[in-house]
C-alpha cells in the first residue's frame, strides 16, 4: 500500500511546475521508482490472486497525496493499472497497479519504433486469432502499407517472439503480456487515427488570413518602421523627442497614442496613460473597483512569491468578501471557485474572476468610455507633433557615435588631461536659462550647437562625466578635422587651452553650420536636463556630443 508520500519534494515539483522538461521529469520519476522498491522504506506490494497460481506482485495507492504523484508515474508509463488498462489514471479506490520493467520505461534516447509496434500488433494478431481492436486494426493496416518492405521480417520476428514468450511459466507470461500492452498504451494511445484527425479543430484559412490582414491594416500607420513616426524615429535621427512625448505617464498624449486606445480594450489597458484615463472615467461612473481589482490581480500574478499570500488575502478582504468595501460583481459560480481556490492561494488563483471582470469592462465600460466626455476631452487635447524638419537628412544616414570611437576619444582626453594641469578647478553650476542663450547661438561661445543631435554637456575636468570627457576629446579632434574639412554636423568646442585663432575659425564653422541647418529647436534642449553646466568662462566647455563625425574622421583620428 502506498499510504504516505515518500517524496514530498517531488510531489510538489510534479504538481506545481508545468515547465519541467520531460527529461527532468523522467529522471525524477526513475529515482522515485527505485526508492519505492526498497523493502524497508519503499512501498509494500501485495500478492494478487491469479488462477490459483503464485501471484504476481502489485501495489495499491490509498492516500490522496500518494495518488497525485502516482498519477504522474502512471501517465509516463512507469507503473500501469491492472484493470481498465486503457486509462492511465490512478483511481481513488483499491485498484491495483504494477511496476513496469526498466526496458519499457520511457526514455528519450530510445525512440519508440514503428517496427516494434508492428511486431507487437502481429503478435497480438496471433494471440487474438485475427480479431484486433478497431484502433489496432487501423494501425496494423497503416503500418502494413508503410512498412511493406519490412513485413516479412515483422512476421518472422513476431512469430519467434511469440514462441519465446511461451517458454515462460504462465504467471510470468501473463505479467509479460500486461507489461507490453501497457507500454503500447502509453506510446500508441488507443485512439482511432482517422477519427481523431477529423475531430481536430481547424480554422479556415480565409478566417485566419482575414484576421492577419485586418491587424496589418489597423497597425500599419502606427508602425515606426513602415510609416513615419512623429516627430521622427529616434533611431534614425538621434532625436529623442518621440520617446519623451510617449512617456508612460505623460500629461498630454499624442494623437496616435489615443487612436491606439480605440483599437481594442487590451490596448487601452496596456498603455499606462490610457489606463489612467479609463480610471478617471470609471471614477466618475462609480465603478472603479473593477479596474482596481483587475490591477490587483495583475499585481498578484507578476509579484514575488513571498508576498502572494498577503496579497491574496488583501484582495479577498477588499473585493471579494461579503460586505467588502469595494465589492466586485461576479457571478456565483466564479465566486465559489475563486473563494475555494483562495484557501490555497497561488499565482493564478484569481484568473477566472479576473477574466470575468475584464470581459465585463470590455463589453460594458469600454464602449461607454469611448463615448464619454473624458475621452473626448483627452482626444481633443492630444497633440500631434510636427514632423522633424530635417527630413533631407533622414535619407542620408549620418554615422552615429560609435562606442569604439568614444572610447578612443576618452582615452585621448585622459592623456591630454594628464599632460595638462587643470586650468580651472571650478565646476560651475548654472541655471538652464543662460544656457538657452548659448544654444540659440547668441553667445560668443564657439560651441553653439545647431545640430539635432543629442545635446549633452561637458564640464570642466574637475567634475568630468564620461560624456564630457568624450565630448572634450571629440571636440579636440573634431577641431582638427573640421578645420580641414569644414563638413559634417555637430560642433566642437574649444578647450580652454586652445588659442584664439582656432576658436575664431570654430565660431565661423559653427555659424556656417547653423545657417545650413536653419533652425535651433530650443524647446528640445529645454526639455533635457543637463547634468552639470558651466558658465561662461574660458574654461567652460559647452558642447554637445557630436555624434556625427564625418565618415573619414575615424581613420584620421586613429592616426592622430
Amino acid at each position, binding site marked *: 500500500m502506498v499510504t504516505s508520500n515518500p517524496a514530498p519534494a517531488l510531489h510538489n515539483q510534479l504538481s506545481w511546475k508545468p515547465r519541467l522538461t520531460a527529461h527532468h521529469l523522467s529522471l525524477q520519476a526513475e529515482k522515485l521508482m527505485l526508492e519505492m522498491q526498497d523493502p524497508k522504506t519503499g512501498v509494500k506490494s501485495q500478492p*494478487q490472486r491469479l488462477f490459483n497460481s503464485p501471484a504476481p*506482485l502489485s501495489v495499491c495507492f490509498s492516500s490522496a497525496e500518494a495518488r497525485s504523484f502516482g498519477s504522474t508515474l502512471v501517465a509516463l508509463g512507469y507503473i500501469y493499472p491492472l484493470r481498465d488498462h486503457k486509462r492511465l489514471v490512478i483511481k481513488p479506490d483499491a485498484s491495483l497497479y504494477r511496476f513496469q520493467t526498466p526496458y519499457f520505461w520511457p526514455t528519450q534516447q530510445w525512440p519508440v519504433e514503428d517496427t516494434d509496434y508492428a511486431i507487437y500488433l502481429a*503478435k497480438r494478431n496471433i494471440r487474438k486469432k485475427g480479431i484486433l481492436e478497431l484502433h489496432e486494426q487501423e494501425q496494423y493496416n497503416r503500418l502494413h502499407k508503410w512498412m511493406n518492405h519490412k513485413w516479412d521480417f515483422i512476421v518472422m520476428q513476431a512469430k519467434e517472439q511469440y514462441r519465446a514468450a511461451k517458454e515462460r511459466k504462465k504467471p510470468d507470461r501473463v505479467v509479460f503480456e500486461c507489461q507490453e500492452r501497457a507500454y503500447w498504451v502509453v506510446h500508441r494511445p488507443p485512439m482511432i487515427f482517422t477519427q481523431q484527425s477529423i475531430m481536430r479543430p481547424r480554422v479556415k484559412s480565409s478566417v485566419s488570413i482575414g484576421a492577419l490582414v485586418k491587424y496589418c491594416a489597423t497597425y500599419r500607420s502606427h508602425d515606426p518602421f513602415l510609416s513615419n513616426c512623429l516627430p521622427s524615429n529616434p533611431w534614425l535621427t538621434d532625436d529623442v523627442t518621440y520617446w519623451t512625448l510617449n512617456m508612460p505617464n505623460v500629461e498630454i498624449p499624442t494623437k496616435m497614442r489615443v487612436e491606439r486606445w480605440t483599437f481594442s480594450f487590451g490596448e487601452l489597458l496596456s498603455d499606462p496613460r490610457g489606463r489612467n484615463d479609463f480610471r478617471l472615467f470609471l471614477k466618475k461612473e462609480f465603478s472603479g473597483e473593477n479596474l482596481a481589482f483587475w490591477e490587483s490581480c495583475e499585481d498578484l500574478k507578476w509579484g514575488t512569491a513571498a508576498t502572494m499570500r498577503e496579497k491574496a488575502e488583501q484582495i479577498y478582504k477588499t473585493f471579494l468578501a461579503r460586505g467588502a468595501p469595494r465589492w466586485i460583481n461576479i457571478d456565483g459560480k466564479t465566486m465559489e471557485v475563486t473563494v475555494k481556490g483562495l484557501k490555497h492561494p497561488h499565482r493564478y488563483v484569481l484568473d477566472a474572476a479576473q477574466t470575468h471582470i475584464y470581459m465585463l469592462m470590455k463589453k460594458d465600460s469600454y464602449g461607454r468610455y469611448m463615448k464619454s466626455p473624458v475621452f473626448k476631452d483627452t482626444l481633443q487635447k492630444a497633440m500631434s507633433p510636427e514632423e522633424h524638419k530635417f527630413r533631407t537628412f533622414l535619407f542620408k544616414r549620418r554615422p552615429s557615435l560609435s562606442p569604439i570611437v568614444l572610447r578612443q576619444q576618452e582615452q585621448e582626453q585622459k592623456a591630454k588631461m594628464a599632460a595638462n594641469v587643470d586650468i580651472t578647478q571650478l565646476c560651475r553650476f548654472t541655471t538652464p536659462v543662460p544656457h538657452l542663450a548659448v544654444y540659440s547661438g547668441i553667445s560668443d561661445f564657439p560651441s553653439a550647437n545647431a545640430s539635432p543631435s543629442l545635446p549633452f554637456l561637458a564640464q570642466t575636468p574637475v567634475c568630468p562625466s564620461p560624456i564630457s570627457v568624450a565630448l572634450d576629446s571629440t571636440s579636440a579632434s573634431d577641431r582638427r578635422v573640421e578645420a580641414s574639412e569644414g563638413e559634417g554636423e555637430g560642433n566642437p568646442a574649444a578647450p580652454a587651452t586652445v588659442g584664439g585663432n582656432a576658436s575664431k575659425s570654430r565660431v565661423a564653422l559653427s555659424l556656417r553650420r547653423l545657417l545650413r541647418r536653419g533652425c535651433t529647436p530650443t524647446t528640445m534642449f529645454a526639455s533635457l536636463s543637463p547634468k552639470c553646466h558651466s558658465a561662461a568662462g574660458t574654461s567652460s566647455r559647452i558642447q554637445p556630443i557630436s555624434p556625427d563625425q564625418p565618415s573619414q574622421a575615424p581613420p584620421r583620428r586613429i592616426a592622430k
Partner: protein
Amino acid sequence: PAHFQEEIANGGTHFDHTPVRNECKTMLDALNKVTACYRHLVIALGSTSDSQNLREELKRTRKKAQELAVANRTKLTSLLKDKSISKEDRAEYERLWVLFSSSMELLEVDMKRSLEIGQDFPLKVPTRHLIQTGMTGSTTTVAARAMSVQNMKYEADSNIDTADLRDLQSEISQVTQMMEEMEMKVQVAPWAVEAKQEAGAELKSNMSVGNSSVGVISICEEEPKEEEGGGGNRDAGFASICAVLVFLVIITVAVVLGYLVINMS
C-alpha cells in the same frame, strides 16, 4: 517449369540457387530466433526475474547471435557481390538482406539497452533494488531455446553482472562497425524490396521463410485476464454449477416419479 526454361535461356550454365537460398534462409531463421529470445531476456533485466543466471544467459545468447550475424553477413555479402546471379535470385537475396539488416538493427538496439540497464541495476549492491514487476520465474527456458539446447548449464563467475559489461561494450562497438561496413559495401535499397507475406500472414502456421526449429504455432488464448476478474474462471464455474443443478433436478424428478410409481402400484 519456368525456372528450367530460364536456365536454358541463360545457356544452361546457370547455377541452381535453391540449396544456397535454403541455407541462407535457415541461417536467417536461426538469427531471427536468437534475436527474439535475446529481446525477451533483455526485457527481464532490472526486474525481479533478474539474476546472475540471467546475465549469463544474456551473455551466451549474445555471443551466439554475433556468430550467426557474422556467418550471415559473410554469406550474403558474397552472394550479393556476385554479378552473375539472375535477377530473380538477386531479388530474393536482397529480400534476405533486408531481413538480415532488420534483425541486426534490433540486436544492436537491444545490446545497447542491455548495457544501459545492466549498468543501472548491478546485482551485488545491496542498496540497489530490483523493480518489483511481478515476474518471479526464471528465463532459463527462453535461453535454452536461443541456444538450441535442452537445458542450460551455468558456469559463470558470481560477478558476471559487472564483468560482462566490458565485453558487452566492445561487442556493441563491433556490431556497430559491422553495420556501418554493411551499409557501405552492400548497395541494397530496402524500400525496393517486396515482401512475400501479406497482412495477416502470421496467422497461418507453417508460413515461414525456412525451417524453424519449433514446428506448429499453437494459437493460444492466453489473455491477461485481470480486467475480467478471472472471468473465464467464473464462467467455467457457472457452467459446472449449472450442470450439477440440472443433474440434481433430474435425479429429484426421477426419484419423485419412482416414488409415485411405487405408491400407485
